[in-house]
C-alpha cells in the first residue's frame, strides 16, 4: 500500500463532512464531546490543530 499523501484529504474550498470527537475540556476540567454540526449551528469558526501525540512538544 502506498503511503497516503496530503492531497487525498479534504480539499481547500470544499465543505468538510461532519465529524464528532470525544474531548477533555481543561476549561471545565471534564470530558465532553464536540461535533462540527454543533459548531456550524452556533456559527463558529473552527481551527483543527493536529499533533502526533500527548507528552511530546506541540
Amino acid at each position: 500500500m502506498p503511503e497516503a499523501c496530503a492531497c487525498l484529504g479534504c480539499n481547500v474550498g470544499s465543505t468538510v463532512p461532519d465529524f464528532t470527537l470525544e474531548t477533555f475540556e481543561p476549561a471545565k476540567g471534564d470530558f465532553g464531546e464536540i461535533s462540527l454540526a454543533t459548531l456550524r449551528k452556533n456559527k463558529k469558526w473552527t481551527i483543527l490543530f493536529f499533533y502526533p501525540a500527548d507528552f511530546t512538544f506541540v
Partner: protein
Amino acid sequence: MGAEIITVSRDTKFVHLAWQRDEKQLANVKYPMGSDVTGKLAKMFGVYDEATGLSLRGTFIISPEGKLLNAEVNFFNMGRNVDELMRKFKANLHLAKQTAEGCPAKWKEEGDLTLKPSAKMVGRVHEALKEMGG
C-alpha cells in the same frame, strides 16, 4: 478570538487529561483536546502517517458554513508559527465581510492593504500595490 480551537491527536481523552494536568507548559490551556483514537479524522484531513500511525502537524481553518479555507501540514520535526495562523484567521474574518477583496501576502491585520481584482489591475498588480503604499 472568536474561533473554537480544537487540538487533536490519537490519544484518548484520559491521556489528554493526564498530560494537561501534569505538564506545566499546558497549565493555561483552555481549548478542548479532541481524541481521534481511530485516526479517522486524521485520515479525512490527509494527515495520518501510515509509517507511524500518528498524525502529522496539520492546521485547518473551517468557516462557520463548514468550508475548509486553509490547510497547513508540517512533518513531525517542525513546529508551527502561531502568528501565521492568526494572520490567516484574521484575513478570513476580513474576507468573509469584504467578499470582493483579496488579502495579499503582506496583509497582517485589519486596516492593511487589500486588493480588489479588476480589469484595470491585470498585469498591473505591482503598480496597484505601490500606489496604495504596499
